[in-house]
């Protein structure tokens, strides 16, 4: 299994760079992962990441896009409750990219 070296610590990741252990996640690590893709995490990015982590704690899976869109809309205002806004924040796709920074595993199956 691949390892990522971060701040002198060896962190287990899968072949796509997703963390294997949710507990390894720190805010600094999220910033580091985003920086690798050339993204500086703003407050808006964090809103999504924080929601994903909270959601995961309760449901053990990333939320479906419909839920993410609605909940971000509720938190950030209706003009931001749409997939276009989320893709602007996360050009690699909110499901993939934002989940990666949030330390969540990627969903697999008929998706």
């Amino acid at each position: 299994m691949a390892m990522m070296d971060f701040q002198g610590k060896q962190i287990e990741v899968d072949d796509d760079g997703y963390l294997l252990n949710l507990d390894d996640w720190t805010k600094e690590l999220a910033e580091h992962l985003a920086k690798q893709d050339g993204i500086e995490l703003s407050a808006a990015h964090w809103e999504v990441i924080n929601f994903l982590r909270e959601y995961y704690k309760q449901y053990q899976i990333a939320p479906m896009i419909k839920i993410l869109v609605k909940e971000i809309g509720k938190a950030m205002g209706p003009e931001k409750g749409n997939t276009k806004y989320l893709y602007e924040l996360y050009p690699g796709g909110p499901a993939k990219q934002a989940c990666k920074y949030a330390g969540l595993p990627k969903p697999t199956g008929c998706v």
Partner: protein
Amino acid sequence: MAKGPTPEELSNIDYTPPPKEWMDVPTVFKPGTFCWGAKGKNLQILEFPNARDWTPVEEDWKLPENWQEILLEGMKERLGKYRSFQLFMDICVRCGACADKCHFFVGGGDPKNMPVLRAELLRSVYRKHFTTAGKMLGKVAGARELTLDVLKEWWYYFFQCTECRRCSLFCPYGIDQAEITMMGRELLNLIGLNTDWISGPVANCYMKGNHLGLEPHTIVSNIEYMLDDIETITGIKINPSFNRKGAEILFVTPSGDLFADPGTYTCMGYLMLFHELGLDYTWSTYASEGGNFGFFTSNEMAKRLNSKIYAEAKRLGVKYIIGGECGHMWRVIHQYMDTWNGPADFLEVPVSPITGTRFDTAKSLKMIHIAEFTADLINHGKLKLDPSRNDDLVVTYHDSCNTSRGMGLLEEPRYIIKNVCNHFHEMPENTIREQTFCCGSGTGLNAGENMELRMRGGFPRANAVKYVKEKHGVNMLANICAIDRATLSAAVDYWVPGVRVTGVHELVANALIMKGEKKRETNLRGEPLPGKEGN
């Protein structure tokens, strides 16, 4: 496909065979054409052999010392157990009728993706160890040893076949190439050579009842969000039931419909239709997966994952089962479930409570496809439909390999679409119905890391879509398969941008006039209905 080749680069296909004999051509693991190896923890959950983390591109696959012995023993066992396997190892005359029928060969040009040659990878080892001619004459008789290179070749190419069976349709002997791939994968499974994208969902399904690992409260919550949207669009509040004993019907669908767009719109379609009919049905959070990725590992695992459907039907005391829009789910249900886990003599022959139609085709199985159920409703005039709500769509229909070649469900989806949409055009006839081209990503090949392979495999299908887009202005590709909904979205974005993908019951629900509904302004995706764009 962020870093991969462009469509222009990928459509420049080289069909020139290598100058050497096929046995002498080494297998090259090209990035973008194979999946990651299975994670040890998932194999452990499933009690599959040789559970460990491994990486296909690394030299050392961490195999058990006696891996050759295990595989040859496994082959021997299967040759004895499955007469079809023995037959298919013996009867091919290498006529080549299958060669250009495979979407991976058409889209990639690699001769080892000609079904005849893919099967030969296995046959050559079979000859060496199980036939007199092969034992004595070796290479002259097309026989070879099972070396590490051969093993790696097996792995690479048996995960470049989607078991779609298009080639089998053209085989004069009726050799079922899907069964050869299934045997190839079963053998690989014996030494822990699974892929992450298959073993992950199988482990999830084993533990939590579905591929995605949706827990009961997640399923309920996801459906509640869909119900919110339905209420916004129609003004109608729907209250479906979960795990309800005494319901007449159990409904089972692939978990992709409960999670991923555009499958979620199809799922909203089921909810709306069943509500409108007042159907006495229930969802199950236990039998919460129609699909069966176990089918891509071993017969035993597929059987085990499948068993919960009948078990739940029995526990809830329903009369029969309706299944949702899925592809390989129906190959498994139609051709395996009854023999694996039947007879379901505690269930009744399905009878539509709305039309009284008795589905004798499911006399033994006790489970019908929702397309059969809905087509029958329309045929009896039981649905009020306004197809003009789909007037912005010019629709074509992609037959899923498994519902067409695997169960002969050809007319029902088309009949439904033509009744709920005004604009429908077929793709060319050698690309539909029994001759349909695969989406290019079935049998658990719908991962992210093998995107080049997927796009190559999706090329023939996409090419036919492009044809009807240019000829008729087609902008919507309908299908009845959850893998299709996910994978064709990627394939058309790549090859035919501007075409979108939908399940059939999304189209049904858009057209469905429901009792007490408010004047609809948008479709299920929240987009303005035709004629309402200015509002």
